[in-house]
């Protein structure tokens, strides 16, 4: 697959952004929509072209030399997992633009320009094959999001955007520190400075365990903030309630996945021994997150904050799958990343459409919309059921895989069932507590649906029908929801497409993680220790 497609994917949105920025105000929406659809074409083409049999090789790879003596070259290329996440981003692009047609009225050019820049930054992150490009794009996604929240948010958007930016930024600074140490270590080991992820992941596991632990925690600091794991999640509800609809959809759909993708792409391969060592810690954080955020959702009045906390709870499952570190766990978490993007993206769109009509997100003021907006209620119930994890919709297979992974990673099971099998030592209890998360999810989502869709019709006082939009969903709005709904249904009934696609890279990651882990522990055994000590000392100049 020629690299031109990946480059196109990154470059078209940027060009589009320029075009939109200098276009006239009225045409902003149309040109933004055209650019988004243009980026859709290479995306779909790559999906079609990609050779899934060798899923774990980087395809559509290219690299440009930037500073050669420092080993800095910007290289792009996608494997199966990255490709699927790019596909999700590219799919959400046009939907988000369509959804914000009537929502954003003044200075649309700036809005759409920044949206397009965000789009290319996100694709850049997933398509990056070296640390430099990854880190540039990882940081660059913050800026457009900051602008979107800052200029187009609701009431106290200033505080929310500052907190969002600073919180994530400090986290990623620590990650940068961790990664730079790894690059330094690799240079020590092999004598050449390189930022290429493949090279780093092959050598980094040689780090002794305590170094790996430090690097892991550094990476965790950055990615845990992005994922919102339990203690560092407080920016998400604030950012979500203040972000415009499009911002929320992209933030929930893709930006949160950067964290989990980072863990999958960097934390596991680079520090396997430490990851296995601290997997129970990460798993506990995610399980607490599931229950803690779930219960908080239940007492929220503001719907958007409720859905925001629900994505904290749902991504707890995703990280639990990662922490289990076996094939079903990783495939479950990848499936989770994709399905959460669709279902929560849908929910935020619904809330956005309602907000445009009723200008309030407070459950106490508005309710019983089923009588006035039947189509809206149908989609709301559909997406609520998808995120509750009803079998047959996309939430279920991912949840099943993550929970089974938690069960499987029990030492007793591995010993009993598979001689050489591996697994971090989570126990069945992680799955049981995470399972209660399913019940809590049902409680708060049905509480919300019950309040908003069903029951007697309530509307905020002084409510008047929207000038442009019909009371129920307009054709444009329905067309934004249909791809997501179809996606939910298809991934719910046929997750096999995804599971087969990602099975290769996931098997390789898991096997590599355990090979290296054994390798690293192997060094630790004392009689070889002297020998290796001796050998490593020679290498040092």
């Amino acid at each position: 697959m020629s690299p031109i497609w990946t480059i196109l994917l990154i470059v078209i949105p940027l060009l589009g952004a320029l075009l939109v920025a200098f276009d006239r105000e009225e045409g902003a929406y149309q040109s933004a929509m055209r650019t988004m659809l243009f980026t859709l074409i290479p995306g779909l083409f790559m999906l079609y072209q990609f050779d899934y049999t060798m899923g774990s090789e980087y395809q559509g790879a290219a690299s440009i030399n930037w500073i050669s003596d420092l080993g800095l070259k910007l290289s792009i290329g996608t494997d199966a997992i990255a490709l699927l996440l790019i596909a999700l981003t590219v799919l959400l692009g046009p939907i988000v633009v369509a959804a914000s047609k009537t929502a954003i009225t003044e200075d649309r050019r700036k809005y759409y320009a920044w949206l397009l820049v965000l789009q290319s930054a996100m694709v850049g992150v997933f398509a990056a094959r070296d640390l430099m490009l990854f880190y540039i794009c990882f940081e660059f996604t913050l800026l457009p999001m900051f602008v979107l929240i800052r200029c187009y948010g609701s009431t106290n958007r200033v505080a929310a955007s500052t907190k969002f930016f600073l919180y994530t930024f400090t986290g990623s600074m620590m990650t940068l520190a961790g990664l730079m140490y790894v690059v330094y270590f690799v240079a020590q080991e092999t004598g050449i400075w390189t930022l290429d992820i493949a090279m780093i992941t092959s050598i980094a596991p040689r780090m002794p365990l305590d170094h790996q632990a430090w690097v892991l925690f550094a990476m965790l600091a950055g990615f845990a903030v992005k994922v919102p794991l339990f203690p560092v999640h407080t920016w998400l509800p604030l950012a979500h309630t203040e972000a415009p609809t499009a911002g929320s959809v992209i933030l929930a759909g893709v930006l949160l996945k950067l964290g989990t993708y980072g863990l999958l792409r960097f934390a596991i391969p680079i520090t396997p021994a430490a990851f296995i060592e601290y997997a129970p810690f990460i798993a506990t954080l995610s399980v607490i997150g599931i229950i803690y955020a779930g219960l908080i959702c239940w007492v929220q009045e503001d719907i958007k904050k409720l859905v925001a906390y629900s994505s904290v709870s749902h991504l707890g499952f995703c990280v639990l799958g990662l922490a289990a570190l076996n094939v079903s766990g990783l495939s479950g978490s990848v499936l989770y990343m994709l399905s959460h993007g669709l279902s929560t993206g849908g929910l935020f769109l619904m809330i956005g459409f309602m907000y445009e009509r009723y200008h309030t997100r407070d459950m106490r003021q508005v309710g019983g919309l089923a009588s006035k907006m039947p189509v809206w209620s149908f989609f709301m119930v559909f997406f609520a059921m998808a995120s509750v994890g009803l079998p047959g919709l996309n939430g279920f297979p991912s949840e099943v895989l993550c929970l089974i992974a938690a069960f499987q990673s029990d030492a007793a099971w591995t010993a009993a069932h598979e001689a050489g099998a591996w697994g971090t030592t989570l126990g069945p209890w992680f799955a049981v507590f995470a399972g209660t998360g399913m019940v809590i999810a049902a409680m708060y989502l049905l509480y919300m649906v019950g309040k908003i869709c069903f029951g007697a019709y309530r509307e905020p006082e002084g409510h008047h029908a929207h000038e442009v939009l019909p009371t129920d969903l307009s054709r444009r709005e329905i067309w934004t929801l249909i791809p997501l709904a179809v996606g939910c249904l298809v991934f719910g009934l046929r997750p096999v497409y995804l599971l087969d696609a990602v099975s290769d890279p996931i098997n390789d990651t898991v096997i590599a993680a355990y090979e290296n882990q054994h390798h690293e522990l192997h060094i630790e055994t004392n009689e070889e220790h002297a020998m290796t000590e001796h050998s490593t000392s020679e290498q040092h100049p």
Partner: protein
Amino acid sequence: MINTTLLSSMLALAPDAHAGGAHAPATSEVASGPSWILLIVALPMVTTILCGIYAMIGNKSKLPAWTTVVGAGIAFLCTVAMYLSFDGTPYTVHAFDWIQVHFSSEGGDKSMIANFSFYIDTLTIYWMLFVTGLATLIALYASEYMSHDIGTSYCRFFGAFGLFVFSMACLVMGDNLLMLYLGWEGVGLCSYLLIGYFYKKPEAVAAAKKAFIVNRIGDLGLALGVYLTFVHFGSLEYAVLFNDPTLLGYVESAKVGDFSAIPAMAQWIPLLFMIGAFGKSAQFPLYVWLPDAMEGPTPVSALIHAATMVTAGVYLIARTYPMFLASEHALPIVAWIGTITALLAATIGMAQFDIKRIMAYSTVSQLGYMFAGLGVLTPTGGAYHVLTHAFFKALLFLCCGAVMHGFAGQLDLRKLSGLRQVKGWGIVSLGMFIGCINLAGVPFTAGYFSKDTILAEAFVTPGYAMIGWILLITAGLTAYYTFRVFFRVFMGPVEYHPGDELHDHDHDDHGEANHHDAGQHGDHHADHFHPHAPGWAINTVLVVLTVCSIFASGLYIVGGNKDAHTKHYADTMVSASTASYHSNYGSHAFEYYEKDPEHYPVPGIGPRGTIEQPLEMPLVGGDPHKMMYYISGVIGVIGIALAWFLHLFGRTNAAECKMDPIARMFGPIPKLAENKWYVDEIYWAILVTPLRIGSHILHWIDKLFVDGIVNVFGFLPRLLAWILRPSQSGVLQGYAVSMAGGIALLLLTVFVIILQGGAS
């Protein structure tokens, strides 16, 4: 032709390990069946999609009802065809791949497979017959019953109805536990949608939410059980699971009574399944949602909350019976919970005045019977009771529905009396009568036979005598409250008052039930209010169901299979499937052993007994089965007589009866029973409010501490700046002082170091 085929299947499948059966290894491939079986599942889904389309194009006719009836009807015919063409060997029909994860671990290629495919064996057929049958009948009934809401609501109702039948089919016919779980949650969703059909009524919405959440708690248990089975046995598909040598080994060691060999994880699985079963079949801890589910329209109550969905729990235990056998505490708990629920529900049922609520509690009670049946090692008894109960309970509900439909939502038995004499209500009264005699267990009725088998087995299996006696008492209570309803509503002087329009659909198009006089207590015959007699659809359905209830008793006699040693139809169907358990305590255990010693286990040796344990538990001096015929019959008749004396004899009007003074004599108990022993309130106080307060506290913690710490870090730099600012005061001498002070300090430190350095 059927019997011979059944026999061969029996031998092939019967999991008699000691027979050293040539079972294929654990990953045995079961034959794949004809693909037209998929029609049974596909048709209801097609009707749902059609109803969706009707709603979109704004259909205003009864078309959705007819599509659903036709769809369910064809599905029923296919099931019958499937039954007739079933040759005994179970087979699977594969639709498409669903969830498949292949992990190439070092220990060979392992994989988790859960496909959209269906496993057909006698148990599935047995269940699907009455599910699809009742679905067709009730769809017909609902076509007229819901005629008030023609329009999008009508389509929404039948769409959900179709989705329900589809989910029930997936649940019963699914070939792996995940398909069962799909069906399980699907029926939960449909019950949520249908209970919440009148979404304008807040109680309906609350009841729907409550039903879904309580079911969801049960589903959690089932889900964890499913994952544990996969993790423990390595597969989810029935074909593989129930031929797994490890499982069969567990069952064998369980039969001999030593449970030490069975690992704890395996023993946990049935306990988790049990939680799921109790949640779905409304057993003791999780039954609170069923009475509230009566908020939904009556056809929904009849189909879902009486006949099909609630039996899903029984089906789950029956299907995974070997696992339950393999666990030491599972079956005893099932038995005891079933008994307690039966007794509790019966007591509450006696004190209610709303006939639909009484029927709901009687369903909970009868389900208690079924679980007790399963618990006392007679899956056949339990399954047969499911069949009979499905028919007569559906009949009773539909009659109540007809009453409610006709009397503008009136359900209070103190406001209705003597409907038998009212013109046009003959069929409903007859149907009600047949249903009541079945429910009460009048001798020679189907209910009587099925309840009798359970009671007998309770006395046969050692250690369960207490359960037997409690169930007997409950039988009496059941008889009493059933005929209390019958005598109060259908017998006695004719008197009726219209309800307060429980249906929220407006009645302006129906001239005859006018509102304004609703509040008035008209004289004996409210001449200007004419009850709306049920139409032809309701009457035909009632007639069909009455006939079925009557002939269901026939199944107890016919259908037995001599070679397979099955006494009656239900016995053959159940014992040919995975749910079979040849109780070597059953009255026939000894006979079987004599006839075929190497084929059947040595009698007397069972999970809870030893060789010395006498085979027959003498009950009042005789073989429990024979004695039970008489005892339960007598108890039933006594109950009826009591009801007659208290509620009909000498009753002049609908409101008072002889029971009222006696009730006052009992003091607070009737009041308590009427308020459902305050179970709802207790749950609300113990579980819901603390959790809600807890969530508020968590939210408060999240806002203050977790967020607070972050804000503090944000605030630190500003604090530091605030402290240092006054040092730049602008006064010249201030700076001079600080400079001199700095020098002094510097010199002092240097001096001390030198001094220290010098001195050391």
